[in-house]
């Protein structure tokens, strides 16, 4: 290897058995072995096994840790009298700018190392190595397709056809693309699956045993109405043919512009009225308005759904402020059980915890504050909940 050495670059002679650097040292020097022998000793990350490697003459060592500015990962020791070239980072940069071949060689070595480590990481994470790229590529398309992320699904299936036009899956990929281009599948399967999980999880929860409130005592709209994703997919595609047994068909049957815009405006205006009363501390007035929104049922339009959910939340907070805890927890329970995707979900859990605390149910309060801590994303409620827990625990029995 031509090193393109120039005057001003230092060489150094070491006696046999000298340490050039120790593992853990921090240094910006890069070395080239000119004559003699150098052994690098390091510990293998995955097995803890000690490995010894000999540097060949003309080879660089200490490159990665110097460039990456991290501690040396190996100890370099000489055998026999040894001469090395010592480069600073600036020397090294000048040298490789004139000799791109060095870079290419190094990149190849680095790339192999990275690939090896990547493989070890995947093994630890339990990701299998023996896979067929064509099947896996198809599966990714399916993932996005089922998730309703059609632009991504479209990209993947197109790529699939480009690379693997002769496979069995190619036909399916082609069909998928056709479906996507014709406006998406008739029924959103993913949405339906999510809903299954969603309802199961919450039906089985032992949430509210506050006083004698039976869980789910308040009348809920039919489940078919709750799932917004399913409704929207259905509403755009629905025809009489599909609609035989659905209770919710009436909500979509008269799906006209006029009807849609009217209730939307009303609910929005109503909600804003409630909100302004709430902000002024007029909880009783706000409560009346929010209860009206709740009584009018879940809106058919997705965009209005959050008013309905938020009305539950604010009405719950109104009751809380009025110290009517039972009424409050009833409403908050609706959110906690049914709308964990709502922006108000975390706050609802927090209020529930406060109500339990106010009612002297300390263990339950702690449980709910703990739940707050586990809801993403981390925000100011986390600190508040943590302080509450600490205070409750300090209070003792």
């Amino acid at each position: 290897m031509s090193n393109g050495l120039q005057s001003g670059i230092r060489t150094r002679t070491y006696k046999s058995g000298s340490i050039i650097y120790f593992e853990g040292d921090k240094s910006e020097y890069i070395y080239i072995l000119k004559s003699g022998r150098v052994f690098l000793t390091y510990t293998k990350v995955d097995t803890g096994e000690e490995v010894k490697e000999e540097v060949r003459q003309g080879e660089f060592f200490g490159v990665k840790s110097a460039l990456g500015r991290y501690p040396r990962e190996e100890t370099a020791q000489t055998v026999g009298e040894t001469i090395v070239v010592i480069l600073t980072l600036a020397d090294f940069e000048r040298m490789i700018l004139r000799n791109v071949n060095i870079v290419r060689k190094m990149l190849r070595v680095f790339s192999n190392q990275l690939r090896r480590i990547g493989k070890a990481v995947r093994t630890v994470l339990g990701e299998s190595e023996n896979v067929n790229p064509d099947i896996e590529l198809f599966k990714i398309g399916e993932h996005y397709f089922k998730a309703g992320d059609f632009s991504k699904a479209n990209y993947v299936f197109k790529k699939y056809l480009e690379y693997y036009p002769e496979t069995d899956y190619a036909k399916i990929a082609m069909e998928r693309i056709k479906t996507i281009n014709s406006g998406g599948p008739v029924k959103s399967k993913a949405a339906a699956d999510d809903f299954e999980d969603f309802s199961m999880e919450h039906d089985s929860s032992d949430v509210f045993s506050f006083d004698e409130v039976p869980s789910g005592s308040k009348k809920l709209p039919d489940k078919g109405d709750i799932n917004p994703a399913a409704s929207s997919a259905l509403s755009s595609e629905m025809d009489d043919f599909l609609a035989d047994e659905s209770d919710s068909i009436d909500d979509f049957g008269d799906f006209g512009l006029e009807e849609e815009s009217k209730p939307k405006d009303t609910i929005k205006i109503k909600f804003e009225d409630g909100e302004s009363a709430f902000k002024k501390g007029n909880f009783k007035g706000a409560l009346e308005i929010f209860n009206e929104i709740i009584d009018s049922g879940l809106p058919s339009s997705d965009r209005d759904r959050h008013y309905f959910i938020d009305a539950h939340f604010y009405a719950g907070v109104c009751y809380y402020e009025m110290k009517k805890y039972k009424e409050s927890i009833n409403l908050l329970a609706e959110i906690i059980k049914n709308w964990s995707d709502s922006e108000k979900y975390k706050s609802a859990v927090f209020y529930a915890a406060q109500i339990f605390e106010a009612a002297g149910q300390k263990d339950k309060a702690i449980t709910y504050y703990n739940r707050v801590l586990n809801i993403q994303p981390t925000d100011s409620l986390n600190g508040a909940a943590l302080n509450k827990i600490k205070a409750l625990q300090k209070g003792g029995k």
Partner: protein
Amino acid sequence: MLELDEKFFSRFGAEYSPNEIIFCEYEPGYEFYFIQKGRVRIVKIINDMEKTIDVLGPGDVFGEMAILEEQPRSATAIAMDSVRVLKFHRDNFDALLQGNPQLAYKLLLIFSKRIYDAKRRLMILLLEEPNVKVMDVLIMLAEQNQQFDFESEITLNTTVRQVASWAGMAESEAQKELTHLARLDKIELYEDRIVVKNIRDFQRIVASRRKNLYSS
């Protein structure tokens, strides 16, 4: 950052709109990318869930494994916002290096850093207990900032999500472990940062667990 003229961009530049796939996991790959503008999300589908592995920004490189090896992509790259990249095919890599030695140097820096990070991550993943893993992630993040004084309190600009991704665990699990540490007053947990009271303490614990790992 690389300073490149418009002529260079017209030859190697490419643009992506938000949420557009740049390349997909398992797709054959022959190109690597330099981000000029915008952010790119690196994701993998694991157990039918899309997991974000990394978020890259201007100056970062991705798809670099394609430079020297013929292997399918190991992850999917998705544009997060309007993204502008330089896209280099392996076939014109040599020409590119010859014409842009600074780029070659930059690639070496990136690879060095990336190998170290990958190794460091592997060390975290090899730990057994989730609480120790989380501690080691915090140590690693502290090591990345040369300015830190390990003898005093350290503020890490990180999120629960990032800690979870480094530790290879679910966000909820990382949240649980971090909350536990916060409860013990070892750390303070905020939306956008984590304050570690005594990083040396964590280093001692992790070092002793790691030693046991090898000796058993």
